[in-house]
């Protein structure tokens, strides 16, 4: 029986996700340069205004902007639902970018009063993003694994915003019960495990098989991820802030979820039919591998086997810089060429010679980005553990070289928007090469 295919025109114009992603790459470069600049601070305790500015450059300026932009491309593709309002998505971009710049700036200056408007604007952007995606997902024909993980992530984003706003207002009015640091740790883990992780895991389950040409994942690892994060993250947050006995069960749930994710990704990598991994996929798989040491350190903290600000910084570097950032960098190297190709060459394909996606990319620059970013993350995790400012700066410079190489690799792709070129692959008998 012939099934009715997805409606044409579901995906928004490529410029919508691209604007988020380009701003995010700016955030990555700023964060890596900021790491080098703040090396002496990073050799000490992590809770300093300038380091909070750095952390938000990574979590909001890099990770959140990329994920939000990718969501506007991926929801129509993987859930087959149009974006509820593309115009709203453009306004959200403006609110988020302005708010994040304001937040980072005010954190850096230690200006808590000025932080309120910036945090409020960012929170408004985040809340509108939740609304826009939630309304896009209304009436889904099937609540697939990816759809459930995106829904979990939206809840996680909402809670992260709530905790963050409460922390910001508490700096002025002092109303939060309990100690400050447990609430701060809960805010960080809600962002990492409540917002970013379910998005990474949900999208991985749908997109990695497409890129790796692997069978769709299924079975018990999916349930582990959904229930592990769904129960583990609230338990961890409550365990940190109000009811300590929930801390260990929460951590166990999160580790189970990560185990399910690693099981799926390793199975997809092993069963792939794609003969050669490109740099985007190498980024993604390396990032997934770095989730292991991050999880080990996290488990160490939960079990009181690890403690102290230096190991906490190493944990943040491995989780945010390793797992999350390398995965995001890999996804950018897959998504951006497609968006550019679709806009620059899609209308000409079948009528004139056009290049393939691989021909848009610069493998040498992508390889340099991979080498510098992976080496930089490993070196930075080691350097912050040792607590030596000189080595932190050296590692950060390597990281910055990787960020610049990634930006250059993406800019080479973006050049095709301005000057499309004929492709070699189209010299075919029918002249219809894509």
């Amino acid at each position: 029986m012939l099934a009715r295919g997805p409606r044409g025109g579901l995906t928004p114009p490529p410029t919508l996700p691209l604007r988020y992603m380009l701003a995010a790459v700016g955030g990555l470069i700023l964060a890596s340069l900021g790491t080098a600049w703040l090396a002496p601070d990073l050799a000490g305790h992590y809770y300093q205004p300038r380091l909070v500015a750095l952390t938000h450059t990574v979590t909001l300026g890099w990770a959140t902007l990329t994920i939000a932009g990718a969501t506007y491309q991926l929801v129509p593709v993987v859930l087959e639902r149009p974006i509820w309002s593309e115009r709203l998505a453009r306004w959200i971009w403006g609110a988020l970018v302005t708010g994040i710049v304001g937040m980072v700036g005010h954190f850096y200056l230690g200006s808590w009063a000025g932080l309120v408007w910036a945090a409020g604007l960012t929170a408004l952007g985040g809340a509108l993003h939740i609304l826009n995606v939630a309304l896009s997902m209304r009436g889904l024909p099937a609540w697939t694994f990816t759809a459930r993980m995106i829904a979990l992530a939206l809840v996680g984003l909402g809670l992260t915003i709530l905790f963050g706003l409460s922390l910001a207002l508490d700096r002025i009015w002092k109303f939060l019960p309990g100690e400050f640091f447990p609430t701060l740790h809960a805010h960080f883990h809600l962002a990492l495990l409540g917002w970013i992780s379910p998005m990474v895991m949900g999208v991985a389950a749908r997109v990695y098989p497409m890129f790796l040409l692997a069978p769709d994942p299924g079975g018990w690892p999916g349930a582990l991820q959904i229930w592990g994060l769904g129960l583990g993250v609230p338990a961890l947050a409550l365990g940190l802030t109000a009811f300590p006995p929930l801390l260990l069960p929460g951590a166990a749930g999160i580790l189970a979820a990560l185990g399910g994710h690693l099981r799926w990704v390793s199975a997809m990598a092993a069963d792939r039919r794609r003969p050669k991994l490109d740099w985007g996929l190498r980024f993604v798989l390396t990032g997934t591998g770095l989730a292991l040491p991050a999880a080990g350190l996290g488990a160490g903290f939960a079990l009181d086997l690890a403690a102290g600000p230096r190991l906490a910084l190493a944990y943040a570097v491995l989780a945010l810089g390793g797992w999350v950032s390398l995965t995001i960098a890999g996804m950018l190297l897959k998504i951006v060429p497609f968006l550019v190709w679709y806009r620059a060459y899609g209308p000409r394909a079948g009528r004139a010679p056009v290049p393939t996606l691989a021909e848009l990319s610069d493998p040498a620059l992508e390889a340099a980005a991979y080498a510098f970013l992976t080496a930089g993350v490993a070196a930075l995790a080691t350097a912050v553990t040792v607590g030596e400012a000189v080595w932190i700066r050296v590692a950060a410079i390597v990281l910055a070289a990787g960020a610049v190489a990634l930006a250059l690799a993406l800019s080479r792709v973006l050049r095709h928007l301005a000057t499309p070129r004929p492709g070699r692959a189209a010299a075919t008998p029918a002249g219809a090469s894509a």
Partner: protein
Amino acid sequence: VIEALRTVLDPELGMSLIELGLVYAIDITEGTVRVTMTLTAAGCPIHDAMLEWVRGAVGRVPGVGEVDVRLTFEPPWTPDRIGADPAAAIARSS
């Protein structure tokens, strides 16, 4: 017709529709060609464009008048179809 379809590549994978096993059936009735095909993912954003490329490629084959491209997701594509014998598509339609 199969050779024409070999020239239509998935832009991301750099493999042709035939190599990927995306073509399920080819019915040829005098000058009319009906291609029944699928995509690697149901929400594939190049959905519309891909159908147009197939129409263009097959339409340029000498003797072909009308090209009817039908999209199906039954059965859904899996990587096991990579390298499937394209002759089976014609055999199925006859």
